[in-house]
């Protein structure tokens, strides 16, 4: 009943704080939408300047979605002046390519396209000169299939499951942490401790009170990503929600725990670079296999590592509950650990 009184009070306070509510429910959707459009933008055709090249090659380049601009003479300066991605020249049958390389991704893509096109054109010429070669040279199209996703898969599809989890983690962490912190700084927590409430009752009331908001947020974020943003979901939506709920519980207990080491809201925000940002690095956005062994070991103490792994498995690869048991168990252990530490942290106020 005391727990219930506390939950009711947390609810009242939250519902009166419209901005915090908006931050919790609208901000994650806003950022996800923004990310969605950022990653789904169309790639611009690269611009290539050419000097003294034969018509067939130019035509082939244009066919390969390259914007070709012809020059009589051109130098390296032309590239920067006309903002070309590259400049191709032919000198006595030898081809040379100068890449601007201000964006390595663009430069590499252009180089690949130019190489392929030039090779193809060269092949056609060879066949014309010697039709006998045509037989072994005709290209056979390769049949490609995919284990996960399909040919339209973009980076955002792989990234989005992790993002969904991360935003749930981030916003729950901030709001619950600052919620309990405010109770500390205004002295109401100490005041609570002069009533017959138990420390465990305070911790569980906080978990439940903010937890309900976290549940609502999680469901909104998941439904929005899947139904509005059309993020790939191969597995079950209930598994996605389950993972995110466990993650929210971890964030909630970690946020309230860390708030006991912060003396002000400012100090609470200082935990973001330490406790929140590294979570992104180890969530699976960057492939973990390539990391140094000690980094891989560190990754395993971050809850987002397990959540990211599980979310990617369910949403992108269609894993079943059995495949992600290990990850879920890890999240449960984290939550249990943080909740216990929370109860101990309140000992600062009263031993009972």
């Amino acid at each position: 009943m005391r727990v219930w009184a506390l939950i009711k009070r947390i609810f009242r306070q939250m519902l009166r704080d419209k901005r915090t509510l908006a931050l919790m429910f609208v901000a994650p959707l806003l950022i996800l939408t923004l990310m969605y459009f950022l990653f789904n933008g169309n790639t611009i055709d690269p611009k290539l300047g050419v000097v003294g090249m034969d018509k067939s090659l130019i035509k082939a380049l244009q066919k390969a979605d390259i914007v070709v601009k012809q020059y009589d003479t051109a130098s390296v300066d032309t590239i920067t002046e006309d903002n070309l991605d590259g400049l191709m020249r032919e000198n006595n049958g030898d081809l040379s390519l100068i890449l601007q390389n201000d964006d390595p991704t663009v430069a590499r893509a252009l180089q690949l396209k130019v190489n392929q096109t030039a090779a193809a054109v060269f092949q056609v010429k060879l066949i014309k000169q010697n039709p006998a070669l045509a037989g072994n040279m005709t290209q056979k199209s390769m049949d490609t299939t995919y284990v996960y996703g399909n040919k339209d898969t973009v980076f955002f599809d792989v990234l989005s499951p992790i993002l969904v989890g991360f935003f749930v983690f981030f916003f729950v962490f901030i709001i619950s942490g600052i919620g309990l912190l405010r109770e500390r700084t205004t002295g109401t927590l100490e005041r609570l401790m002069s009533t017959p409430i138990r420390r465990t009752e305070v911790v569980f009331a906080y978990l439940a009170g903010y937890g309900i908001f976290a549940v609502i947020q999680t469901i909104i974020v998941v439904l929005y990503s899947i139904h509005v943003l059309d993020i790939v979901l191969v597995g079950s939506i209930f598994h996605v929600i389950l993972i995110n709920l466990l993650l929210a519980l971890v964030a909630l207990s970690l946020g309230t725990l860390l708030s006991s080491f912060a003396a002000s809201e400012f100090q609470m925000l200082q935990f973001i670079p330490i406790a929140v940002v590294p979570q992104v690095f180890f969530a699976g956005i960057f492939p973990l296999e390539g990391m140094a062994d000690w980094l891989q070991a560190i990754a395993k103490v971050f809850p987002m590592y397990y959540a990211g792994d599980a979310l990617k498995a369910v949403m992108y690869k269609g894993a079943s509950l059995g495949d992600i048991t290990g990850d879920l168990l890890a999240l449960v252990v984290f939550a249990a650990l943080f909740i216990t530490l929370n109860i101990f942290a309140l000992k600062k106020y009263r031993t009972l």
Partner: protein
Amino acid sequence: MDPAIRVEQVSKSFNKKPVLRDIDLTIETGQLYGLIGPSGAGKTTLVKMIVGMEKTDGGTVMVLDEKMPNLAMLQNIGYMAQSDALYTELTGEENLKFFASLYKLKKDVQKQRIAYAASLVNLTGDLKKRVAAYSGGMKRRLSLAIALIQDPKILILDEPTVGIDPELKLSIWNELLRLKNEDGKTIIVTTHVMDEAERCDFVAMVRDGRIITSGSPQELKAMYGVERFDEVFLQAGGKQS
């Protein structure tokens, strides 16, 4: 009758700096007990130990014959902190209701106690307002009302009249006397205002973590041979150093 509160040989240090040294005091049931002393003397630490919110380094605190800290005993103690610990997003009534439910009061008792406590501190008309809109004095009064909400046997008030106008201060003191005389409540008040100390049944002067002198206001005046009460404090303090 047994004493309501017994403090024996209690000491406390923060960061190796002693705040309280070997405090002994006995508070009889139905007494209005004043702890007076300058800021930083250790009054707040002492009352927090009586409530059980602060651990003692040594010694024991007994409240109603139970060793503190004791969770069940908190039902019998109404505590008003030095700073107003209120939920400013909530209305005065919601604050009262919240604390009432922490003490597990029944619905009808809750209503009755809220009405009583609010009228006692003249807040009945302002109960529906959010605490954020309250003045400093109103917040102080609401804190006092919360301390009274569960009808505790013991009231521990840490500087209850700071920031309250003289008229209301008088009415609060009259009410404290009434609570003591009619309801037989034991009341501990900390203060640094001498005229308030003089209205207590028994006064202990705290300075640098020690009780330098104690007795009823009349006894103390006679002991130091002075007319005015504040001179007692000056003399007692002077004798120490």
